[in-house]
C-alpha cells in the first residue's frame, strides 16, 4: 500500500469502526517510516471528521460514534508515541481543563469531547467526574490552560456551573469557558456567562470536530 492508500485505510477504519483494521494500518504506517503526526491528522482525525458529519446528519447515533472513538483510540495508542516534537516550530499552546461538575457522575459525553480535544492536539487535563467546583479553578490556575470545559448531565448539577464560571472569571478573565451536557441551552450559557456551549453530545461533538478541522487547516498552512 502506498501512503495515500494507507491514509485512506486509516480513515475508513475509523469510519467503519474497525479497530483491527486501524491497528494493522497504523503499524504499517510506522513501518513504512511515515510521519506519525501526519497519520494522526490526515488519517485518524480526518476519519473522525466524517464520523461527525454522519452524526450531524443523523446517520450515526451515539453507539456508532463511541465505536468509532474506540477505533480511533486504538490507532492513537500506536501512533502517538512516535510523534516528533519539533521545537523549532511555533507551537499553539492548546491546554484544556475538562470535567463533570460536582454532584454529577455522568461522563460519556465528556469523554467524547475529551477525545476530540486530544485528537485536535490539545493537552487535556481531565479532572474526571463529580469534580468539586473549586478544583476547576485550581487546575486552571495550576496549568494556565486557555480553555475550561464543564459538563453536567443533570439540571441539578448544571446550576453549579454558574459558580465555577464566576470564580474562574474572577481569577482569570481571559480564559475561555465552554459548557455542555443534556440540560444546557444557549440561554443558560448566556446567563451563566460561558463563552460557548454544546447543547447536547451531538452539538458538543460537532463543535469539537469543527475545532479539529480548523486545527488541521492551520497545520496544513504550517502555522503549528
Amino acid at each position, binding site marked *: 500500500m502506498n501512503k495515500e492508500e494507507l491514509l485512506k485505510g486509516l480513515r475508513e477504519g475509523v469510519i467503519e469502526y474497525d479497530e483491527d483494521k486501524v491497528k494493522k494500518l497504523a503499524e504499517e504506517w510506522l513501518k513504512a517510516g511515515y510521519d506519525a503526526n501526519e497519520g494522526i491528522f490526515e488519517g485518524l482525525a480526518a476519519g473522525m471528521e466524517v464520523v461527525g458529519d454522519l452524526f450531524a446528519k*443523523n446517520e450515526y447515533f451515539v453507539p456508532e460514534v463511541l465505536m468509532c472513538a474506540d477505533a480511533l483510540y486504538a490507532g492513537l495508542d500506536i501512533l502517538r508515541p512516535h510523534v516528533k516534537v519539533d521545537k523549532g516550530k511555533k507551537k499553539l499552546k492548546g491546554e484544556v481543563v475538562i470535567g463533570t461538575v460536582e454532584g454529577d457522575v455522568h461522563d460519556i459525553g465528556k469523554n467524547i469531547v475529551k477525545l476530540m480535544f486530544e485528537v485536535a492536539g490539545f493537552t487535556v487535563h481531565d479532572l474526571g467526574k463529580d469534580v468539586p467546583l473549586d478544583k476547576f479553578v485550581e487546575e486552571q490556575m495550576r496549568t494556565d490552560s486557555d480553555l475550561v470545559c464543564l459538563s453536567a448531565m443533570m*439540571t441539578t448539577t448544571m*446550576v453549579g456551573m454558574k459558580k465555577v464560571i464566576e470564580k474562574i472569571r474572577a481569577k482569570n478573565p481571559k480564559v475561555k469557558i465552554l459548557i455542555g451536557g443534556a440540560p444546557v441551552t444557549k440561554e443558560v450559557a448566556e446567563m451563566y456567562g460561558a463563552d460557548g456551549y454544546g447543547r447536547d453530545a451531538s452539538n458538543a461533538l460537532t463543535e469539537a470536530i469543527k475545532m479539529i478541522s480548523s486545527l488541521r487547516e492551520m497545520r496544513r498552512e504550517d502555522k503549528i
Partner: protein
Amino acid sequence: MTKSTVIFQPSGRRGRVNSGVTLREAAQELGVEIESVCGGKGTCGKCKVVVHEGFFEKYGINSRLSNLSPMTDSEKKHLKNGEIASNYRLACASRVEGDVLVYIPEESRGGGQVIRKAAGELDVSLNPAIRKYFVKLKPATLEDPEGDLERLLKELEKTHGLRNLKIDYPAAREMPEALRKGGWEVTVTVWQDKEITWIEPGNSERSLGLAVDIGTTTVVGYLTDLETGEVIEVESMMNPQVPYGEDVMSRITYSMTHPEGLKEMHRAIIKGLNKIISKVTKKAGVEARDILELAVVGNTCMHHVFLNINPEYLGLSPFPPAMHSSIDVKARDLGLKANPGANVHLLPIEAGFVGADNMGVVVATEPHKQDKILLIIDIGTNGEIVLGNKDRLLSTSCATGPAFEGAQIKFGMRAAPGAIERVKIDPETREVEYKVIGDAKARGICGSGIIEAVAEMFKAGIIKKNGNFNPEVKTDRLRKDEKGQYEFVLAWAKDTSINKDITVTLADIRAIQLAKGALYTGCKILMKRYGVDAVDKVILAGAFGNYIDKEASMVIGMFPDCDLDKVVAVGNAAGDGARIALLNRDTREEANKVARKIKYVELTVDKDFQKEFMMAMHFPHMKDKFPHIKNVLDRIPG
C-alpha cells in the same frame, strides 16, 4: 415573522409559534386541547389558563405574563380578582408576544386523560393500623366523678385489653361532647394499639383509609374500606407540581433556584390531594373526616416534597435520601383535610433514586419471599429495577426519560382519547393498522403506541438494527420531512383530528433507543453483579406496564431475553403497595427490613456502563441473542 416559544403544561407540549397568535391557536397548533364552549369568542370563560413566570432552566425560557397581550375587558369579566392576581388568563383572548410557560388547569383541559391506574384485586390479610372499639361507660356521678379520659381508658383496658394508651389532642378535644352525645357510648379509634386518635358518639363501624400514589406525572388516591379491604372510589389527577418541572431533576432544580420553591411545590401537592379527598368522599357519600389513616408511596423526591423536606441533596451525587425508614406524620401537620387525628404512613426508601414507590412495588410483588429470581422493571418517568429472590436483592434506577410516556416524541401525547395505543404494520405492504383510545380520531401517539410502532417498523424492515430508516423500503409512508430527515407516516391527515399526518421521526426513534437502552443496561448490569445470565421471571410494573405489549417490548430490547410466558405485566404495583400497607400494618415493618436489605447499584460508575449502554441502543441489542423471539427476529426482511 418573529416566533416565540410556548410550553403547555401539564402535557409538556411545546413549540415555536408566530407572535400574535392567541394561546388557544397556539394550543391547537401544538395539539393541546383546551376547553372551549364558545369557540374562542371570549364569551364562555372556559379556557382559563395560568402563566407561570420565571426563568426555567430546563427549557431555557424566561416566561413572563407581560409576554402576552394586555388583558381584555372580556377577560376581566370572566376572571375573578384572585385569579387575575394569580396570573390567570383566557386562552382565546391572550396573544403571544414572547416566551411563555402556560399551565392548563384540570377544569380547562379538553378530553379526559385515561388514567391507567385502576385498582385490581389484592391478596392481603386485613390488619390495618387503626381499629375501632365500641365501649359503654358508666356515666360520671357525684360519687364517681373521675375524668372522662381515665374512665374511658379503664373501660378499654377492661373490655379490650388495651393498656398504656395515649390520646391524641384532637381526640381529647372531641371526647367530652362525644361521650355525652352518645349517652356514654362511644366508638374509639386506636392507632397501632398505642394511641386514641378519634372518638365518635355511638357505634360507628365505618373505617375508611386512603392509599395514595404520588407519581411524578400522575397522582392517584384509592378510598378504601379498612374493614373489607375494598376500594370504594378511585380518583386521579395530573401531579399539580408538573408546572415546576416535568421530571424529578427539574423539580429539585426548581427548589434549589427559587427560595420559595419547595414550599410552593409542597403546597401544590397538598392542595391536589385535598382535591382528591374531597372528590372521593363526595362520590362515596362520606365525609373527609371519615378517613382515619393514609398510606403514601412516591419516588424519593415526591416523598420529600410531600413532607416539605429539602430534596436538594437527592439531585447531587452521591444522592442520599433524607431517610430510609418509613415515617408516620399526622395528616393535620401536613394540612391534609382528613380526620384531624389521621396518621399518614410513608413507605420506606431504598435509595436516592429508588423510593417509596419502588418499595410499594416490592411489597406488592414480594421478590424477598421467592426462590425464583425475579427481574422487576417499574417503568415511569424513571425506570427502577429490582433483581433477586429471598436470598439477595439488588436495585437500580435508570434515566429513561419520559419517552415511554409519550413525551419528547413529535406526536407524543399521554394516554387520552385520540391517542394511538396499538400499531400493526404488514411486513409485505407496509400498510398500518392502528387502534385509538376512546371514540375519537387519532390526535397523537401514547407510550404503548410508540413502543409498538417502533417494534413493528423494525419487524417490517422499515428501520434497521441501529435505528436508521432503511431507504430501500418502498412505501409512500416513508418519506423525508422539510429538513430532509426520514419519517414514517402512521396516520394520514384525513384520518386525524389535527389535520396533519401523524408520523414517527428519526428523533423519536433515537429517544426510544436511549430510553430502552438505559433500561436494558440497568437489567444487564444488575444481572452481572448478581452473577446470573438469565432470570426466571420478568415483571413489568408501572401504570403503563399493564398496556404494553410484551412481545413488542422484547423485540425492541427493553430487557434481556426471557420466555415470553414468564413475562407478566402487573400494572400500577406501586399503588398496590400503598393499598397493602394501608390494609396490613405488618407489611410496614417488613418493608422497613426489606428496604435496608436491598442493595442499590449506581449504574453510571460501573466500568462497563458506557459499553453496555452503547450496545443496548441497537434493536434489540448489538450482540446479545434473543432465542425466545428468534422466530420473530428471523422473519425480519433484509
